[in-house]
């Protein structure tokens, strides 16, 4: 589980954060303004490619993507 969270956190830091952002597993990503709704599409695509899953649009809500912890929970639902 930590591996999964670390992979997601690392990707979010690399792709969306600036060097001043100090991110944790609980940092609000969408409501915090770090990842906007358009960029969320690329984050969803990353998860789908990385974990070979398909996340239906109805599950890809801003709330489900609002932190690394929540994203990890979402990914786990589809990876079994």
């Amino acid at each position, binding site marked *: 589980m930590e591996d999964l969270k670390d992979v997601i956190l690392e990707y979010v830091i690399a*792709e969306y954060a*600036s*060097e*001043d*952002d100090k991110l944790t597993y609980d940092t*609000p*990503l*969408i*409501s*915090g*303004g*770090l*990842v*906007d*709704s*358009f*960029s969320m*599409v*690329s984050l969803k*695509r*990353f998860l*789908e*490619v990385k974990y070979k899953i398909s996340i239906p649009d109805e599950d890809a*809500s*801003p*709330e489900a993507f*609002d932190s690394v912890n929540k994203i990890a929970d979402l990914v786990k639902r589809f990876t079994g």
Partner: protein
Amino acid sequence: MPNIGSYEERIKNFDWSISEKELGYQQGDVINIGWYCSDRICEMGNGDRLALLWENAMGEEKRYTYNDIRVYSNTIGAFLRSLGIKNEDRVCLFMDKVPELYIGLLGILKIGAVAQPLFSAFGDESLFVRLENAGTSAIITQRKHALKVRKIIDRLPNLKHIIIVDHDGKKELKEREVAFSMEANRVDKLELFPTKAESPSLLHYTSGTTGMPKGVQHVHYSLISQYLTAKWVLDITKNDIYWCTADPGWVTGTSYGIIAPWALGVTQCVLDAGFSAEAWYRFIQKYKVTVWYSAPTAIRSLMKAGDAIVRQFDLSSLRHLISVGEPLNAEAVVWSEKVFGLPFHDSYWQTETGSIMISNYPGMKIKPGSMGKPFPGITGTIVHPQTYEPVNETGVIGLIAFRPGWPAMMRTYWRNEETYKGKFKNGWYLPGDRARLDSDGYFWFIGRDDDVINTAGHLVSPFEVESALLEHPAVAESAVVSKPDEINMEVVKAFVTLKPGFSVSEELELEIMNFIRKKLSPLAMPQEIEYIDPLPKTRSGKIMRRLLHAKEWGEEIGDTSTLEND
């Protein structure tokens, strides 16, 4: 009784001098938006009134009175002057929705310089083309966005100053960078530059089908339109708590997110955070927002979040709701009436018009899904797309057209007079949208008259995205069109052919998406990439975007006689 009173009566007896008189302006006077939005309100005895209630994603809160924004805009103006910035120099505002963005705009205008607000999510290439085109002298930004400026500074010899408003001293400033704290100094008196009606005020960039973004030049006299439209369409009164959700990187965020509310002396709120239904409702509840100006994409996102969440908050302070940016679908109007007890009133205008042109007015019957009727003083109609003569039959689709001459109309495209002149046909200004009129005189939006993509109310140029795609090492050719989207109305879709040695993969698709997101902006990022080889072309080799667009929208393909062998 709403501010507008009777729409029908206003139509009969309208003159822009109504606005001039209320603002105490006479032809030939000095007119400076920065002064009208701060000093004037203080001189009227309202210096202690709250001008700005600001909150960010971490829940930090700041409050500024009209006297505060008067003083801090003086401070910013004085600092710019000390750097050698003079009237008509372009000063870019490139920040998140922090107080310095809002107050900084007034400071720039007070010294007669031209404010150039740019969306802070723009990538370095989007930023570069707009700064280079404008010949921008200074940029006011935050340290996280300064990183993008550093990447392009070598190509911008005119950019003399990079002003960082949140420098913490931990890292060294780089070439041309200077730290500035708005609240560290208070400049009580600033000599105002005596701008006149036609003095340039703002330069807003907007995207077109071909060519690079165009700088829309506005003047200080635009205030006359912005003030009165806010008073009559948004129905703002001095006791309101007003929330415009638009980012000042776009024209709604300046015309109705800074200029109009502050010229009216109202208290406005700003939430500097990403979207979430819960955060938005909590914000309305906390600050007791009364007038709410938002956008269809946000409203549809709230609809998607459901009705139950609405009931968790006390939103009884709301009294008037307005929408802008793209057509507001009838379902959203019906939904808002159901959950808020108030319908959203659609309004229509664009960067070039500078102020609201068509709207549903308080007190007037709303036809859900319609754009409404022209603002008093605006002559608007539908013209034939070839003859540019007014279409006199109801229900016939044509081009929206306005008689030029309202105060906030753009004065030109920056260094692009030819394109500006091309916007006028047969004495009409053509905003580039198609619509129809019904028998009651209501306008009904149909779509753009060109290939520009309207995503979440923001225009994206397919040409700009196609050009950026070609800079990716794997892309040989590209064509960009819109595709329908439930929330954003349209999103960007790219069709690409790959260079030899590259093969189709999901990893490559993600790489290209991120490439565009960082280079241009998240809005411009293709949400879908389709590999197609060859792209449909005319016999002369021009890519036929029209066919790809028709495919995405399930429309008739139409005439394909010029299509290259398929």
